[in-house]
């Protein structure tokens, strides 16, 4: 199972790059994706997550070829 991961704004600065990809055998939750991709980095407070461009909760299961994005609270408008 291949999962694409993206980081935006201050979270991209925190991680140090904007994209990751992980290959995994079993189904993962969004929380587990964070742990695998960031090698257990502490998750900044208020971090948001989207799967395939929709907001999800951290226990959501991720499917093959999903795009998972992590980012801080939005500040547009």
């Amino acid at each position, binding site marked *: 199972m291949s999962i694409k991961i993206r980081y935006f*704004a201050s979270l991209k600065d925190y991680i140090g790059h904007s994209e990751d990809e992980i290959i995994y055998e079993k189904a993962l939750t969004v929380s587990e994706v964070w742990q695998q991709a960031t090698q257990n980095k502490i998750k900044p407070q208020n971090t948001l997550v989207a799967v395939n461009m929709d907001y999800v909760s951290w226990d959501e299961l991720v499917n093959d070829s999903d795009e998972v994005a992590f980012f801080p609270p939005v*500040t547009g408008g």
Partner: protein
Amino acid sequence: MTVIIKDTPINPYQDLQEYEETKLTKNNAIGASNIFIGTMRDFNEGDHVKLMSLEHYPGMTEKQLNKIIAAANQQWALIDILIIHRVGDILPNEPIVLVSAWSSHRGDAFDACRFIMENLKSKAPFWKKERLINEQERWVISNTKGYLTTKNY
């Protein structure tokens, strides 16, 4: 119903006039339009800001804005909606966002425009980074609440 994300300046009044002349339909049923324009201020949290960079998540931004428009259409009788949002580098005084809601009645136009702005501010994946006059850069941490009044009209 139109969503535009662009890295070139928004000219609110020209953009609105052009939109009304070329894209807007059912003109004679329109009795009310409510327009919000958000502009870059040159101060924030007590500091003088000289430039702002707006990052976004291409694809998700449009998806979320279209969901917000769909939610507004479910709650109010709207003839058309236009959302324009700037990305990239922005200077003080330049517009960041424009939302316009056209309806037959003013209640719907006002409510929908405000609903869209509040939801855009909390759900659309845009992020602002400010450059201060001392060249220091910082991410804006969170949007202020667009408090709803408890005052009577």
